[in-house]
């Protein structure tokens, strides 16, 4: 007899928590849907401009590589700051252009969008593996150059800058692939 009230209380608390959680999830989903339904500015409707936006990951990558080859200086710190800023700005712009396709949960996407996202991830995986491969070649070349000439291509802790840039770029690649492949929906959604 003494167990029943306790069980009821526990159940009620659990129910309340579940209810609260579903309410929060619904609110979050509604916010995401509103964000995804916002119209894009006209300049982003052209394929050329979208593809230009898709090239944004090259900015932090280039900055990171240049920062890596510079000696520890104000220039390197500035370039590293540029890497961080361009990565954050880049991922925000790319996700805006691709309507958060690579960031929202599956329940907010339909089967076509899930397929598009998965194809983009497959391409992005290949690109990131290629990028890491290039980095590996660069590391080997740097080691050889360092032994032969005594002056490495990427001095001191420059590899930290290069690695961080690569990691940030890797996070941008799926959205960049989506932006590159983006196909316009028919305009007349009557």
């Amino acid at each position: 007899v003494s167990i029943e009230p306790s069980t009821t209380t526990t159940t009620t608390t659990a129910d309340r928590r579940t209810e609260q959680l579903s309410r929060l999830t619904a609110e979050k989903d509604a916010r995401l849907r509103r964000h995804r339904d916002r119209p894009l500015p006209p300049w982003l409707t052209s394929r050329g401009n979208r593809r230009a936006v898709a090239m944004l990951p090259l900015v932090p990558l280039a900055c990171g590589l240049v920062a890596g080859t510079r000696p520890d200086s104000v220039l390197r710190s500035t370039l590293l700051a540029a890497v961080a800023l361009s990565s954050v700005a880049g991922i925000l712009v790319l996700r805006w252009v691709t309507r958060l396709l690579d960031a929202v949960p599956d329940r907010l996407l339909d089967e076509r969008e899930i397929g598009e996202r998965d194809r983009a991830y497959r391409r992005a995986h290949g690109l990131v593996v290629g990028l890491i491969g290039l980095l590996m070649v660069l590391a080997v070349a740097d080691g050889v150059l360092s032994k032969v000439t005594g002056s490495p291509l990427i001095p001191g802790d420059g590899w930290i800058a290069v690695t961080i840039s690569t990691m940030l770029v890797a996070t941008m690649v799926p959205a960049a692939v989506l932006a590159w492949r983006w196909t316009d929906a028919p305009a007349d959604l009557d």
Partner: protein
Amino acid sequence: VDDKDSRGNKRGSGLHNRLPVLRAERGVSRRDLAQAVGVNAQTIGFLERGDYGPSLELALRICAYFQLPVEAVFSLTPFAPMSAQLYATRTGDPG
């Protein structure tokens, strides 16, 4: 847009459909149809344009919405124009 997928196949669907005709006939907007079958309105546009082939589940949901059999809505071969079909019926020509 790259019109080939990762396997080098042409993007788009080999499946033909009568969605634009059915929608026009019944005065249903893309948004309404999309809402009824649980997809985004853009996806209906891609289906109509032949850029996307629906899953079996989506195709069946669309057919259920229009209350038509699958072969009346989707086909592996192009549908004859509605006018040609009507004319053939009136003149008794089965073709």
